[in-house]
């Protein structure tokens, strides 16, 4: 009684599906895995990837966890293996965890590249590197030092205490701080669970707990507007500076109001575009290990260091230039 309407529904759906099935078969299939697909950062990557897929005439699958979840990433990759995709492009939530699944894919003849956050080197052929972790950490720390003239208290807000690349950035930021800016003081590191509202609460608490706090560095994208809103509400615009890694669209208002000084990021659409180009080239065999440059349709000749395809330097969005970008 209960399953009969269900089966009818399913049968109807099957008819619809049968038609879509045959169309895609002749194309090369590229599967792209973000860390969390709702994140505006990856949404913007996808926009670039979509364009590349159109330009190159390949089929793009884009799927990932809605929350950054290492186990779900593995499950999605294993699903793609049995779906027989041609090439997989992965932003690894957790380096070791994903590598087991990626090695399995390679064993079955599926090409693997990584972007945004790398897996272990033997689990992929190339890493499309948007900016080295050092590059990011140094840009942020140097910018913080520039704003504070090299002295004063600062705090870091990151996504979660378990995200691999967040921790790597944090450690490199701390290294740079200890080496170059001994007069500055890191007073706290707080997680915000990738929630803007929580980042705002954390920033508020930080400002009251550390009255001499001069700067908040937010290294995950929801935390930048969250921290900025907290500073603005506390009436400390200018007294407590905000910098971070984030998207222009989410921070435009605060950058223009002078609450947030700098938002650092690379051009995420270009990252998505280049990733797909590289993935397709690897699958077609035109990009082989040992290559020194990679010709991109959109970005010109791209430098390759070892097995890292380099997108370029991080870009700093400020009051002057932020209106030119709409992602």
């Amino acid at each position, binding site marked *: 009684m209960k399953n009969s309407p269900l089966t009818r529904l399913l049968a109807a759906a099957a008819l619809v599906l049968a038609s879509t099935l045959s169309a895609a078969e002749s194309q090369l299939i590229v599967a792209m895995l973000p860390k969390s697909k709702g994140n505006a950062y990856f949404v913007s990557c996808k926009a670039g990837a979509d364009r590349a897929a159109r330009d190159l005439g390949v089929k793009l699958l884009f799927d990932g966890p809605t929350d950054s979840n*290492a186990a779900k990433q593995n499950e*999605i990759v294993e699903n793609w293996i*049995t779906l027989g995709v041609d090439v997989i492009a992965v932003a690894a939530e*957790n380096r070791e965890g994903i590598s*087991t699944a990626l090695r399995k894919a390679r064993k079955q003849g599926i090409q693997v590249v990584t972007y945004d956050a790398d897996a272990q080197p033997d689990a992929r052929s190339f890493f499309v590197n948007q900016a080295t972790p050092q590059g990011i950490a140094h840009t942020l720390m140097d910018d913080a030092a520039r704003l504070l003239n090299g002295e004063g208290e600062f705090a870091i807000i990151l996504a979660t205490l378990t995200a691999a690349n967040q921790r790597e950035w944090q450690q490199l930021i701390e290294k740079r701080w200890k080496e170059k800016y001994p007069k500055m003081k890191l007073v706290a590191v707080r997680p915000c669970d990738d929630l803007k509202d929580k980042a705002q609460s954390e920033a508020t608490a930080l400002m009251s707990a550390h009255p001499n706090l001069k700067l908040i560095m937010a290294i995950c994208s929801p935390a930048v507007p969250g921290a900025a809103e907290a500073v603005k509400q506390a009436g400390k615009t200018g007294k407590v500076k905000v910098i971070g890694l984030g998207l222009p669209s989410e921070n435009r208002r605060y950058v223009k109001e002078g609450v947030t000084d700098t938002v650092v990021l690379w051009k995420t659409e270009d990252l998505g575009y280049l990733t797909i180009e590289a993935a397709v080239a690897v699958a077609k065999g035109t990009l082989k290990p040992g290559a020194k440059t990679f010709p991109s349709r959109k970005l010109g000749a791209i430098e390759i260091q070892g097995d890292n395809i380099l997108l370029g330097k991080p870009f700093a969005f400020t009051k002057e230039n932020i209106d030119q970008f709409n992602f």
Partner: protein
Amino acid sequence: MMKPTDAPSRDWKALLLRHEMILLYVLVAEWLFFYFAGTSVNRRGVVIGFGTLDRQFDVLRHSCEIGLLALALTPVIITGGIDLSVGSLLGLCAILFGKLWHDAGLPIPVAAGLTLVIGTLAGGLNAVLVTALRLPPLIVTLGTYSLFRGLAEAITRGAVTYTDFPAGFLFLGQERWLGLPTQAWLFALVALAVWLLVHRTTFGRSYRAIGYSSEGARHAGLPVASRLAGVYLLAGGIAALAGIIYTARLGQAKADAGTGYELFAITAVVLGGTSIFGGAGSVHGTLLGVAAIAVLKNGLACLPVVMELNAAEEIAGLLTGALLLLALTGGVAFRMVPRLRRPHRAPSPTPPSS
């Protein structure tokens, strides 16, 4: 009013059977649908998608941990309790196992054994609070839900990830033994044990009696407290095992392991026909519930139309929620559900606090 369910009368049993049979039809229909709609041949002439053996094994591997938690929860829910902490405990056990092996240098089997003991002890914390202090399980395990996850984060300071486990251990989570994924054998073993416990021993009968009316069970001379303690201890032990298998499947132990698994497990148990009020339920129902959710989730990911939408997980979640509601409302037609919630503990009159 209600029919007595502690000594299952014939028609009650028939009705229960019916729920599980319907679930079985749904499962078979699901499976057949995905088999035909989710399988195709790619450019190189290779069969891909849901119909491949690899895919079927993936379904098994991916549902193992949630399946174990659902098995752990079945006796708990039959007694009228609940355990929200199993997912967090999975995470805690995973990192404790990693720590014992990596930092303390213990051999894998010893570390695994100790982890099982620790998991059982952690279940013991729930057991003590629920039985000795007679606190409501929902609240106790809500607290331990935070506590266990928090301890896992505190121990690793969030950052430490244990990896580089030896191949022999990873065999447990990633390879096959006698034709099936290794962990599937362990899962089958646990499933069989829990099934025997619930359906073929006096323990199982006493769980139902307690779930139906713990006061009544007490008057009938059942050792309610120790029986209740037993199910929470068991849940802790099984959660620890799930933590070890999770570690082997991913090749890493990290503090966020198993986040949100408790909800999937509870969903599977309830979908399987176990009454959330306690008193009635079955292990095979739970297994069917787990399978229905796992096939749905994995099958959807193989459908071209879903791939176009890039939203397999969301659609699976939506349909799981809908399936659960359907099972519940459908259930109303067949059986009489207690109209109002009965208290989880013995109805000893609680004076209003404050």
